[in-house]
């Protein structure tokens, strides 16, 4: 395997509190050396991209890969291709596939099929995600499940949730809670507020999320288990988590870019790419989410990448399935809406997508420490991204950001020491002829795997 020297670029690694202009040498699939003036030998590929940032490969802890079951929408292959296009080298795959990932064999299947990026399976909490019988959490963990979630719905029965937390705690795994009280959601389609009043779409009150956030925090507190709350979207949820953390509860939480850059007002266009669960919230909620990211209440930014076919989305708004793709826009949306707006430093933003999700999942990833696996993203924080349907590598195109221009362009992604994505350098300013040739070579590599 060829060595790679990333030379003279700004290296940001929050896990080691690094933000300086140093070289990074990758050899044997790991970070071999860091420092100033590392010399490249003839075996080493030299990468020097002016203005670029070198960071740990991103960790997206909330992804729907659709395989098995809906390979027309996404496969593990296409999903990981999309991931590395977005600078993501490790992702956690949610178990709400067809069938549900609730047996060791399926965990093994999902875990072993990620080649371009690391795929970490999350297994179901209950058999078939039906909320009744605990799945074999111990065996699932042994097969490689990094966490458990019935994502897509809450475990409605509090006693089942309590036992799940107790049991997961015994085997040292985190429960990821999708917080939504189905009775309060009812036939709801969008966030309850002025926008739902105007659009006539059935409203979902914010308390539908918050009552379960509160319940699960109390259950985590009483069992001492580790709880991670998925896709926090409301002001009330942020407040509950903030208070729980102050009380010493072992809780972490995530939000998704759409909750800090879109609001329920965007739903009034009846554009089905805006339909998502939890629904886009009010401007006040958006402000609270941004504040939660700034003050550290929210630990993680994850995509909740949810591919849907064009056929499924080209229907009436209330008939469209909820969800939007997001792995490829995770970094540019976070830079554009959280860093360029001055709310977060670039270092803090990177931490939310690297070391912090890795810690929440308990996986070894998200750092450029010497000796760590060489999972690296090189990106230009000022580079423009014109989002079009064709730009996505995902099999599905259901993004509300098609047509927008964002900042934060991924130039190169390295997984286990191999270049798994590389921008067409001939179209990038500051590239040499040599780099162009190498780009062509590495594209062959991508195609070959």
């Amino acid at each position, binding site marked *: 395997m060829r060595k790679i020297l990333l030379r003279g670029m700004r290296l940001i690694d929050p896990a080691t509190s690094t933000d300086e202009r140093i070289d990074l040498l990758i050899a044997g699939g790991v970070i071999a050396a860091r420092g100033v003036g590392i010399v490249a030998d003839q075996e080493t590929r030299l990468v020097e991209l002016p203005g670029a940032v070198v960071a740990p490969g991103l960790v997206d802890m909330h992804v729907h890969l659709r395989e098995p079951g809906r390979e027309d929408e996404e496969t593990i292959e296409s999903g990981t291709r999309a991931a590395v296009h977005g600078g993501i080298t490790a992702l956690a795959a949610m178990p709400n596939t067809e069938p549900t990932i609730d047996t060791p064999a399926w965990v093994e299947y999902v875990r072993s099929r990620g080649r371009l990026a690391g795929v970490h399976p999350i297994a179901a909490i209950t058999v078939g995600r039906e909320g009744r019988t605990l799945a074999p959490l111990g065996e699932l963990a042994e097969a490689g499940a990094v966490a458990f979630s019935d994502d897509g719905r809450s475990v409605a029965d509090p006693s089942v949730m309590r036992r799940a937390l107790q049991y997961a705690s015994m085997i040292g795994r985190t429960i990821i809670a999708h917080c939504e009280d189905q009775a309060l959601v009812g036939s709801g389609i969008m966030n*309850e507020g002025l926008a739902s*009043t105007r*659009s*006539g779409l*059935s409203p979902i009150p914010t308390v539908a999320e918050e009552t379960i956030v509160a319940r699960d925090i109390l259950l985590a507190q009483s069992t001492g288990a580790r709880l991670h709350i998925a896709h926090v979207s409301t002001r009330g949820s942020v407040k509950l988590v903030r208070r729980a953390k102050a009380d010493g509860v072992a809780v972490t939480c995530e939000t998704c870019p759409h909750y800090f850059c879109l609001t329920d007002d965007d739903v009034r266009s009846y554009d089905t790419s805006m339909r998502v669960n939890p629904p886009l919230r009010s401007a006040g909620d958006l402000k609270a989410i941004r504040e939660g990211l700034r003050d550290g209440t929210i630990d993680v930014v994850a995509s909740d990448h949810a591919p849907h076919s064009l056929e499924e989305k080209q*229907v009436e*708004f*209330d008939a469209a399935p909820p969800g939007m793709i997001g792995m490829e826009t995770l970094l540019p949306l976070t830079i554009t809406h959280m860093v360029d707006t001055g709310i977060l430093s670039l270092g803090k933003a990177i931490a939310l997508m690297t070391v912090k999700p890795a810690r929440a999942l308990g996986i070894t990833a998200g750092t450029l420490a010497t000796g760590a696996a060489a999972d690296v993203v090189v990106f230009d924080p000022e580079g423009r991204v014109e989002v079009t349907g064709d730009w996505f590598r995902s099999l599905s195109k259901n993004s509300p950001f098609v047509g927008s221009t964002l900042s934060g362009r991924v130039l190169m992604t390295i997984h286990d020491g191999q270049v798994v994505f590389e921008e067409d350098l001939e179209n990038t300013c500051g590239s040499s002829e040599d780099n162009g040739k190498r780009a062509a070579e590495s594209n062959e590599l991508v195609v070959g795997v």
Partner: protein
Amino acid sequence: MNWTRKHLLGLEGIERDEIITILDTTSRFREILDRPVKKVPTLRGITIANLFFEPSTRTRMSFELAEKRLSADVLNFSASTSSLKKGETLRDTARNIEAMKVDMVVMRHPSPGAPHFLTNHIDGSIINAGDGSHEHPTQALLDLFTMREHAGDLKGKRVTIVGDILHSRVARSDIWGLKALGADVTLCGPSTFMPTEVEKLGVTVTHDIRDATGDADIVNILRIQRERQNGGFLPSLREYSALFGINAARLREMKPDVLIMHPGPINRGVEIAPDVADGDRSVILEQVTNGVAVRMAMLYLLSMVRASKRVEEADILAEVGA
């Protein structure tokens, strides 16, 4: 004339002048309905499809009558024969309608925004005949026309809407139209039937029926769907009737010249007592007649926009020598 829109999707964002144009045009068509021969050749050669994805007798009949009185060719497509049941998407239905070269589409659909969706897939003009709980613009226009006939200029007039505002497309369209004409709008009904932050639309909300109707010039009573009782919105229809129903005793406490309206179909004895519905302050049947005239006016105005577009295109073609 002040009408340049291609579609009538709702009354949100509509200008006062546009409503005045529609109401003035309606007056002209209303007069036709009193003639012995009630048919004019205005829309001869124009094909209109009525797509009803939800049961409706009155609105569908009203549109069909309006279309026939304007001599349009009419195509009916109703829920029982709908493509949805055959697993086709609304988009495919739209593309088929488009392929049949239909000029205008009137659509009733249970999903809010369905007519907006249709505009992306159809070249013809679209009239929203009710989309879920969103809007029902022609109903609101016939309400406005009827109010104007009796009360004159609606600026400063007190209009109260009573009932299930949350699920009502009529209420939403009425609010937009009435606000555009400068009326003072009050909403009255149980708290479970009030949409969130509805006050921000510039209306007053009260849960006291006496407060709401005491000095009202017009009281528009909405139908209470019987299934709402099962949905947990109401303890019982009896309780609704006791707290919010309009009966003769309550009518006596209102202004003597108050106008009682209802978009129908009425639940006698629930939201309105039979003697009030049939009484001398009620204009409920007049609303039905005016509905046909308003729809004729709307179809006419939209056809004029289409015709002027065709003339423009012909001019351009002539200029380039095609």
